[in-house]
């Protein structure tokens, strides 16, 4: 059976790729489009390292079929910075040492960006529960949550 020809929008640019039905959106981003910023940590939706935005909703790219991207708008980590201007979250993850190995960082930044768009002034608990789907094994989450709260404050102009 011929592959699906999928046309979609990724980080504001039109994109198209061929994929088989069982290929996940994560496989398509990484293997067909070379966007390796989203990472595979488990392929079962339990680690969040492949978090992307699909039509404005935060999802795990490993639990979406590539063919479902037809006509959708997708945002990945590669689209968070505007050219060389880092997003406040990216800046604070660096300044507040919110990453060590960095493999979970893309997922955390996409998820935290979705959080701040949903709730510009989250409490620590709200941030921790929203980000519970993003596993990190190096940091113990402390500096990640602080970086998210600091970025939120900066974005609110607080």
């Amino acid at each position: 059976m011929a592959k699906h020809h999928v046309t979609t929008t990724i980080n504001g640019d039109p994109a198209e790729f061929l994929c088989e039905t069982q290929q996940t959106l994560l496989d398509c981003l990484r293997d067909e489009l070379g966007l390796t910023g989203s990472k595979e940590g488990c392929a079962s939706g339990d680690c969040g390292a492949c978090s992307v935005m699909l039509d404005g909703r935060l999802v795990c790219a490993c639990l979406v079929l590539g063919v479902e991207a037809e006509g959708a708008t997708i945002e990945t980590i590669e689209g968070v910075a505007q050219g060389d201007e880092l997003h406040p979250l990216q800046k604070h993850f660096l300044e507040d040492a919110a990453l060590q190995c960095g493999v979970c960082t893309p997922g955390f930044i996409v998820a935290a960006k979705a959080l701040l768009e949903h709730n510009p002034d989250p409490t620590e608990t709200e941030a921790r529960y929203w980000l519970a789907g993003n596993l990190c094994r190096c940091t113990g989450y402390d500096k990640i949550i602080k970086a998210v709260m600091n970025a939120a404050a900066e974005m609110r102009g607080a």
Partner: protein
Amino acid sequence: MSEIQFATPQTVKEAVKCLAGAKGKARVLAGGTDLLVQLRAGFVRPGLIVDIKHIPELRKVKREDGGFRIGAAVSGAELGANAAVKKAWPGVVEGLELIGSTQIQGRASLGGNLCNGSPAADSVPALIAAAATCHIAGPKGTREAKVEDIVSGPGKTTLKPGEFVVSFFLPKRPKRSGDAYLRLIPRTEMDIAVVGAGVSLALDSKGVCTEARVALGAVAPKAVLVKAAGKALVGTKVDDAALEAMAAACRDACKPIDDKRGTVAYRTKVAGVLAQRAARIALARATGE
């Protein structure tokens, strides 16, 4: 993986046609948060995947006869954002909103959670407690069914080949009524329920319970409506004695298994504990505290 067809029907009729043509080798795709994990692990090998998210009727939430009609493909995140449903049936919304992480919430649907047939499905006990019904479409037309009659055992449903759930109906809330759902998971998030308890009850003007439904998850091959537990509350002020009797009925109804998440003894005891706590929250909501 043999080559898998993929269909995106735009209407219920079109979907029924797709499914009927696939002679039982088709799987319905709503959120996909269970289906894709099973696909990857090779537990399922469908010949056809039917994506029902493009059918408007399955994505809508609207009022009906004082209650709500919720599309089977509505995601947890969407339902969680619907203030009206959340106000009327907080327990049902709690059940759906507890499924997995924010990322899972962006996709997981009531239809998928029910039809995946997991005994521990978080949204099912609260739906059963709410006496919710489903509207089902299939080759022989449409029919209604109670939620508690859909799942027949782990991973098994009573849906006939080619049938799928189109929407759920949450009945009108009687005055002075409340519902709640609680579950026990080892962490604070990201786990499958070791025990789940959904309670829905209504009181008369003097605070006496006129109606009560108690449903448990993960303590039997499928989510179970514990009639004796409900009876233990009806006619009482839902005081400690009544709650203890209800908890005892819950413990008797448990037929759990030992598995990697919990033991028989543990599930049996905690089922009673959670049912009591959920009933207290439902009571508080019913008396408008």
